C-alpha cells in the first residue's frame, strides 16, 4: 500500500440545482490515511460536493470511485455501507432520543445480530431491538478513540462538544473508512476545537482517512496533509499543505489578495455614550440570563464582549436596544435615561443593532432589499412628509446602500427578497442600513459569524470606520481573533455576568478561551508546558 494509494477519486463531477451550477467539473483524489482539507468560501460548493459523496444529492454527471470500485449512491445508506461517513455542520441528532439510540438509529440491531436478508428476519429486526450489544460496542469505541460520552444521556442535555463526539461515534459505529467532517470547529470553543484536532489525529492513527471542510486557513496549516481549494463551484488546485502559505491559500480561495492586518488607527475616546448599570433580565424560558451587569461604552471605542454563546449575550444585546424588558437596572444613551423605553425610542436616540440571527431578526426575509434597507429610515423624510411612502426615493436610497456597502447578488432592489442574499451579503446590507443612519451606538451580535473571509474583512473595516466616526460600538463575538483584532476593551461574559475585563494588548487567545469556558482565571499549572519554572 503506497502512500499515494487513492481511497476516493472523483472525476468530472458536476452538480446542478436548476440553473445554478454548485459543482462544476470537479476532480478530487483523496489518499488513504491522509487528512485532506477542503477549503473554500461559503457557497463555493464544498458541502454540496460532500453531500454528493454521502449519497444525499445525486450528481448531474461525473464518476465516483471509492475503494477501487465505481459507485453510484442512491442514499446515505449506500454510502455508509460502502464505508463513507459524514459529520454534518448542523448536527444530525434527534434531541429527544438518547445517545445510544442516536448512534444505532437505522441499524436495526437485534439480540442475535443483524438481519440476514430474509423477510422474516427483516421483520424481526424491525419489531425488536437490542441494547446490550450496541452499548458495549459504543463503550469500546469511545475508549479506543478517546471520545467520552454517556450512552444513556439524552442528546438535548449534551453540550456542543459532546454532541460532536456522538456524531463521530455514530460514524465509527458503522465501520467507515473515510470520514467527512463539515466545518467541525465552526461551533466549538477554542479549547473544544483543540480536542477535536486531537480526535482527528487519533482517527488517522487508527487507520481512517479524514476529509475536513473549512474556511479557516490556520486549520489547514494545523491539520491537513493536502488541501483542495474550491471557488465558485470549481476546483482551483490541490496542493501539499506544507508547501503553501496562508496568504497564497487565501488568494486562491477568494480570488484576490486578502489583507490580514486591519489598519486600526488610534482614535481618542470620548464621553460615555452608552451607560447601562445593574441590568437584570430573564431569558425566553424565564430563568435569569443577566444578573446585575454594568457596561459602559464611550464614543470612538469598540467594546468586545467575549463568551460562549448562551451565557447571556443575546439577552444583553436585546436589553440594550429596548427589546427585552428589564427586571432591574438602568440604561442611558448619550446621557438620556431610556430605562423601560420601547425599541422605537432607542432607534430614535441613535441606537443601531445588528442581531445574531440575521435571517430571522435582521431582515424581513420575504420582503425586498428596498423594504429592508429603508425599514429604519422611512419615517425620516425618506418618503416625503405625508402618510405616503415615496418608493422611488426609497429605491434610490437602497441602490445607494447596495453600492456603497458592496452588497452582491441584488438584481433589482425592489424585486430581490432579502432572504435570498448569501449570509455575508445580507450582513453587509444590515450593517449598511444600521450605519447609514450615523448612529450614536452600534450593538452588533456575532457580526461575522458564518460569513466568508472576504466579507469578514469588509465588515470589520466597517466597524472600525464607525469607531473613527465617534460611534460607541458594542461587539459580541465568539471569534477570538476578531475580539483581539477589533476591540479596544474586552469583557468576558460567563453565566450572565462579566467575569473578566482586559485589553487586547494584555491578553491572548489561550487566556480568553479559559475565561470563556470556565468563567475563572486560568491557573498556572494548566499552562505548565509553556510557563517558566519559578
Amino acid at each position: 500500500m503506497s502512500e499515494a494509494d487513492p481511497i476516493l477519486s472523483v472525476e468530472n463531477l458536476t452538480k446542478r440545482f436548476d440553473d445554478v451550477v454548485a459543482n462544476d467539473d470537479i476532480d478530487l483524489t483523496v489518499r488513504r490515511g491522509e487528512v485532506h482539507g477542503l477549503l473554500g468560501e461559503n457557497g463555493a460548493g464544498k458541502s454540496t460536493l460532500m453531500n454528493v459523496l454521502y449519497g444525499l444529492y445525486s450528481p448531474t454527471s461525473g464518476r465516483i470511485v471509492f475503494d477501487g470500485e465505481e459507485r453510484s449512491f442512491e442514499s446515505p445508506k449506500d454510502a455508509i455501507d460502502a464505508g463513507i461517513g459524514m459529520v454534518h455542520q448542523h448536527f444530525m441528532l434527534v434531541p429527544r432520543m438518547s445517545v445510544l439510540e442516536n448512534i444505532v438509529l437505522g441499524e436495526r440491531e437485534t439480540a442475535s445480530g443483524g438481519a440476514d436478508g430474509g423477510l422474516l428476519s427483516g421483520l424481526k429486526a424491525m419489531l425488536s431491538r437490542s441494547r446490550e450489544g450496541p452499548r458495549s460496542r459504543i463503550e469500546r469505541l469511545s475508549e479506543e478513540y478517546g471520545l467520552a460520552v454517556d450512552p444513556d444521556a439524552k442528546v438535548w442535555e449534551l453540550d456542543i462538544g459532546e454532541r460532536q463526539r456522538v456524531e463521530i461515534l455514530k460514524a465509527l459505529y458503522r465501520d467507515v473508512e473515510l470520514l467527512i467532517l463539515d466545518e467541525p470547529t465552526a461551533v466549538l470553543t477554542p479549547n473544544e476545537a483543540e480536542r477535536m484536532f486531537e480526535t482527528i489525529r487519533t482517527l488517522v492513527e487508527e487507520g481512517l482517512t479524514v476529509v475536513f471542510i473549512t474556511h479557516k486557513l490556520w486549520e489547514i496549516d494545523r491539520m491537513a496533509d493536502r488541501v483542495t481549494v474550491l471557488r465558485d463551484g470549481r476546483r482551483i488546485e490541490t496542493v501539499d499543505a506544507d508547501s503553501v502559505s496562508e496568504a497564497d491559500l487565501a488568494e486562491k480561495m477568494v480570488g484576490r489578495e486578502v489583507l490580514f492586518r486591519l489598519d486600526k488607527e488610534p482614535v481618542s475616546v470620548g464621553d460615555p455614550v452608552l451607560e447601562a448599570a445593574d441590568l437584570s433580565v430573564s431569558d425566553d424560558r424565564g430563568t435569569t440570563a443577566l444578573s446585575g451587569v454594568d457596561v459602559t461604552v464611550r464614543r470612538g471605542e469598540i467594546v468586545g464582549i467575549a463568551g460562549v454563546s448562551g451565557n447571556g449575550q443575546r439577552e444583553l444585546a436585546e436589553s440594550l436596544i429596548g427589546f427585552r424588558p428589564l427586571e432591574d437596572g438602568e440604561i442611558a444613551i448619550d446621557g438620556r435615561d431610556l430605562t423601560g423605553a420601547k425599541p422605537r425610542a432607542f432607534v430614535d436616540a441613535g441606537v443601531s443593532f445588528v442581531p445574531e440571527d440575521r435571517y430571522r431578526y435582521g431582515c424581513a426575509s420575504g420582503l425586498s432589499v428596498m423594504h429592508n434597507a429603508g425599514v429604519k429610515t422611512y419615517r425620516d423624510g425618506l418618503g416625503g412628509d405625508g402618510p405616503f411612502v415615496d418608493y422611488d426615493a426609497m429605491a434610490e436610497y437602497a441602490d445607494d446602500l447596495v453600492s456603497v456597502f458592496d452588497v452582491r447578488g441584488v438584481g433589482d432592489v425592489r424585486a430581490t427578497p432579502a432572504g435570498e442574499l448569501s449570509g455575508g451579503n445580507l450582513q453587509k446590507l444590515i450593517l449598511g442600513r444600521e450605519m447609514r443612519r450615523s448612529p450614536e451606538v452600534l450593538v452588533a451580535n456575532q457580526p461575522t459569524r458564518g460569513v466568508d473571509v472576504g466579507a469578514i474583512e469588509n465588515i470589520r473595516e466597517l466597524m472600525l470606520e464607525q469607531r473613527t466616526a465617534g460611534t460607541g460600538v458594542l461587539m459580541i463575538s465568539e471569534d477570538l481573533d476578531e475580539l483581539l483584532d477589533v476591540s479596544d476593551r474586552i469583557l468576558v461574559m460567563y453565566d450572565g455576568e462579566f467575569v473578566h475585563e482586559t485589553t487586547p494588548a494584555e491578553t491572548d487567545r489561550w487566556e480568553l478561551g479559559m475565561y470563556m469556558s470556565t468563567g475563572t482565571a486560568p491557573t498556572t499549572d494548566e499552562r505548565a508546558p509553556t510557563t517558566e519554572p519559578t
Partner: protein
Amino acid sequence: MTLVAGVLESTVRLATPLLLAAMGEIIAERSGVLNLGVEGMMLGGALTGFAAAVASGSLVVGFIAGTAIGAAMALLHAVLCVSFEADQVISGIMLTLLGVGLTTYFSQGWVGESIEGFRTITVPLLSEIPVVGAAFFSVTALDYLGLALVPFVWYLLFRTNVGREITAVGDDPETADTAGVPVYRIQYACVVLGGAFAGAGGAQLSLAFTNFWAPEMVAGRGWIAVALVIFAQWRIWRVLAGTYFFAAIDALSFRAAAVRDATLGVLDTPALESTVRFLLNPQVMNTYPYLLTIAVLWYVMRRGTLAELGAPSALLESYSRERD
C-alpha cells in the same frame, strides 16, 4: 345503580372507536404527518363495513373491509403529503369532506337497514364483579380488540427499532435519512396504518354499536380523536385515559333522559330545576363532547406550546433531500 352500570357499559363501547382512531393518529403524527381526515376515514369505515357485512353476510368480512377502506383513504393522503409535499392540513380536511360527501351519496340504499352486529362476549366470573364487571367483561370482540391493541401499539412505538425510527423521522427526517432510515417508506406505512385504525374505529360504530348506518353517524368523533392526541401528548397510555373520559361524557348524553330524571329526583330543588333541565336537555348534552374538547385544548395549550407538550418537531413539514 342500574343507571351507573348502563353508563359504564356504554362508555366502554363508545370508547373503542375513539381509542382506535386516536391511536392511529398518534402513529401517523409520530412519523411527522398530521392527518385531519380521521372523521372521513371513520365514515368510510362505518359505511363500507356495514355494506360489506350485509352483502357478504359476514361481520368479520365487513370489519376487514371497513379497515381496508380507512387504509386506502389514508394512502391518498400519504401520496399527496409525502410524495407531492402537499399541505397536510388542506389534504386532511379534503379527506374528511370527501368522506362525508361520498358516504352520504352512496349510502342512500343502506339507510334504514339494520343488522345483527357483533355479539356481546361475556367473560365468566370477571363479568360478575359489581358495576365494572359487566362494563369491561361483557362487550363485543371489537371492544376487546381495541383494548388489546393498546399495549401492542405502545410496544411498537417505544420498544422496537422501527418505533425509534418513526420517532426520528417525525422529529428530524433529514437526520433519519442520513442515518440510513427509509424516511418515505416509514411515513407511508405510518399514515396507512393510522388510516386502518380509523377505518376499524368507524366499522366498530356501525357493526358493534349502532348496528345500522346513518349518514354522518361518526358525529365529530374523528375530530375529537385528533384533539385527544394533543391532550395525550402523543403518548399511548394517556390516550387510553383521555378516551375513557370523553366516552363517559358521550355515554351520559346517550342516556340524557334517565340522567335528567335521576338528577332531578336527587336534587329536588325547584329553584334550580329549569337550569338543570336545560343543562341535561338531550340536545344540549350532545354538545358536551365538543365543549369539552375546547376546554381540554384550552387547558392543555395553556401549559405550553405544541413542541413543549411533546409534538413531533417536524410535524407538518414535508421532507425532500435536495431542497435546502
